[in-house]
């Protein structure tokens, strides 16, 4: 009895002490990896999560460099303040501010904890590593406590998570691996990629919440609906540090792989409370890239794409059993991307990325089940180009331009409702500038300004209800702390 009590107190003390240390100690970006390798953030990141050449090598080698830590855990907190001019509700003439923590006034302001994350994993053996993340969030500050508004909820659920088993091909005379081949499994298409032009890791890196009305069209691979309810299983080869080839099959996070969508509805048998957007069968994802480093420079060009068949479970709100052999919506996405980095860091660092994603989709199922689209076939094109400069690893500026275009569809793109498209066109374009200041290497302040020149087909009065694209221009402040 006494021994038990001692053990209990000891366990409590260790837990409390560890938590305290964890809280007190300032640390590093994805500090699990920093603790494991002993590196500073800038070894792997231009500014998190943008990877340097060495950061890419670390990831492609399955996070196995360094020594496994006894407590491989870290955390992140992200908070955001938004200001957007009034998106007007035509019926009342009042601003309609959306999202958690929104405050209606002459303009929309809100302050919220966007997300918190717990990271775990890293090196498991010489050949095996993982990156685990649980996230929760959308905690509006001063607006009545935890909220489940929007895509997230305060209760943590599985976020980007992956496992890698790597094998290095080399002979006794090899001076470096001739190739790294790997088996990997993840719960978000493109999260396993190492270049920052793919959807999972492209700018903006802070998960800014919607503030006003925004573009309604996005390609599937850029916005894989259903969160992490999908699991990609496949492998890649990284040959001579130049050629990268990857193939994966994406499927629903059910049965044996349901843990990859932990807390968000993935469990044995069916998707439970997932209302829709469950992948049907096995869906191919592919990626080829060529990379070249010279001097302080590094460049990459590549393509990636996915064929996705997604169960249509509308009307929204009904459950979507995987065994339901219902109709699917089909998405065929293909993209080209490129990246350039200059990483001398004495004192400047530059990076540039661009991507163009083209999608052909067939939404016959959506059209027939709920009349959610006017025509079955659509194209959607998304283009982004961005440039980043960092001075002294402390002051950063990023400028980006986005353009979305595609087939008009009066129903799909919300004609007649506030924020929708009066013409049915999804065409949108906007500029973004973000200023960054790193107080410490693990604490970043950002100020973002987004200027919309066109939203859902128009500049002024794009929804036919009096809303202008420029009225959605936003200023957001963000704090991102990892420890």
């Amino acid at each position, binding site marked *: 009895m006494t021994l038990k009590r001692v053990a209990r107190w000891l366990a409590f003390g260790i837990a409390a002490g560890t938590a305290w240390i964890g809280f007190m100690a300032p640390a590093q970006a994805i500090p699990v990896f920093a*603790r494991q390798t002993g*590196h500073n953030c800038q*070894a792997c990141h231009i500014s998190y999560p943008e990877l340097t050449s060495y950061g890419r090598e670390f990831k492609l080698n399955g996070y196995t460099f360094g020594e496994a830590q006894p407590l491989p855990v870290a955390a992140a907190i992200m908070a955001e303040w938004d200001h957007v001019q009034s998106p007007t509700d035509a019926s009342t003439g009042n601003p309609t501010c959306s999202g958690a923590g929104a405050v209606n006034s002459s303009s929309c302001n809100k302050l919220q904890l966007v997300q918190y994350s717990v990271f775990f994993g890293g090196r498991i053996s010489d050949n095996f590593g993982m990156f685990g993340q649980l996230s929760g969030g959308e905690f509006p500050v001063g607006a009545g406590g935890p909220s489940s508004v929007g895509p997230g909820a305060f209760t943590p659920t599985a976020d980007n998570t992956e496992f890698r088993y790597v094998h*290095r091909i080399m002979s006794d005379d090899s*001076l*470096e*691996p001739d190739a790294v081949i790997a088996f990997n499994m993840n719960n978000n298409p493109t999260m396993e990629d190492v270049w920052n032009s793919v959807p999972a890791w492209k700018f903006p890196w802070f998960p800014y919440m919607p503030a006003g009305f925004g573009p309604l069209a996005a390609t599937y691979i850029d916005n894989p609906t259903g969160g992490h309810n999908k699991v990609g299983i496949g492998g890649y080869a990284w040959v001579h540090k130049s050629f990268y080839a990857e193939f994966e099959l994406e499927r629903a996070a059910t049965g044996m792989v349901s843990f990859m969508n932990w807390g968000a509805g993935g469990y044995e048998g069916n998707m439970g409370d997932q209302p829709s957007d469950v992948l049907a069968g096995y869906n191919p994802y592919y990626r080829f890239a060529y990379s070249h480093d010279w001097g302080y420079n590094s460049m990459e060009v590549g393509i990636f794409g996915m064929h996705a068949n997604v169960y249509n479970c509308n009307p929204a709100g009904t459950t979507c059993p995987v065994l339901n052999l219902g109709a699917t919506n089909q998405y065929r996405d293909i993209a080209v991307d490129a990246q350039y980095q200059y990483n001398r860091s004495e004192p400047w660092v530059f990076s540039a990325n661009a991507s163009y994603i083209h999608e052909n989709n067939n939404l016959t199922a959506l059209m027939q089940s709920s009349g959610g689209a006017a025509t079955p076939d659509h194209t959607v094109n998304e283009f982004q180009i961005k440039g980043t400069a960092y001075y002294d690893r402390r002051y950063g500026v990023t400028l980006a331009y986005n353009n979305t275009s595609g087939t008009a569809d009066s129903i799909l793109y919300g004609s007649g409702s506030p924020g929708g498209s009066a013409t049915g066109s999804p065409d949108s374009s906007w500029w973004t500038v973000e200023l960054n200041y790193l107080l410490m290497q693990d604490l970043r302040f950002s100020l973002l300004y987004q200027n919309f020149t066109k939203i859902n087909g128009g500049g002024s009065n794009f929804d036919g209800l009096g809303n202008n694209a420029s009225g959605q221009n936003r200023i957001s402040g963000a704090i991102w702390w990892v420890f």
Partner: protein
Amino acid sequence: MRTNMMRKPGRVAALLAGVALAVTASVAFADDAENAKALTAKLAPERAHHLAVTWCSACHGPGGISGQATFPILAGQPAEYIVTELKYFHNLSQDERSVTHETQFEQWIYNITGWRKPYSSYLHSDDYKYDNAPRNEERAWDFMKGVARDLDEPTMQALADYFSKQAPVAGRLGASGDIAHGKALFQDGDANRGLIACQSCHGPEAKGQGPIPRLAGQHADYVKIQLGFIQSGVRSVDQMQALIANLNQKDFEDLAAYVQSLN
């Protein structure tokens, strides 16, 4: 019925057996410790080779010939120099407890769990203002403190042996700077400015020896930046700091261009 007297021999025997067991065990463990040490030394070359090919090569390039001047070329460096530097980085990682003002409680946690406050807390401490952090030294610490943290001495030695035996890089022209002037400084020094000939330590062909690094073929930009940091005391090399006190950035550039051009 047994008596106490009858039981005593049993107790004594048990005690003796226990002591014997403990002694045997401790001798055995001592042997194991010795064996482990010997084994570590024996396996060091293999471990070092694995590390060099899989990890070091990620920055320092195949065989220690890096493509980026952030990372010095290691191929053909004197082994003693490499070991000296590795120990320097290793000691930095071990010293961090004192410089981060780790409390006794934190040390206790470390002793139990092996988990230690990350190095960045040192950067944030009063001893080391991030603002004033010398960037290039940071650059080395970004990577190398962590790499050297978990290396034991035999492995360091084996790594040094590995890189010292790699074929050195060929000289390369193309760096900005006046090679002729760099050559004059390197070979003859500059008596007026207190510079003795670099070759008197680094060797006439800049191949280095013992703890003195090889410069031939080294990235010019790396050499230039290091000279600046040695001059300002950021990188502490006592023997050199006074000698190059009166040189300027132009001299550094010329010297760097010259040594990079050497085979």
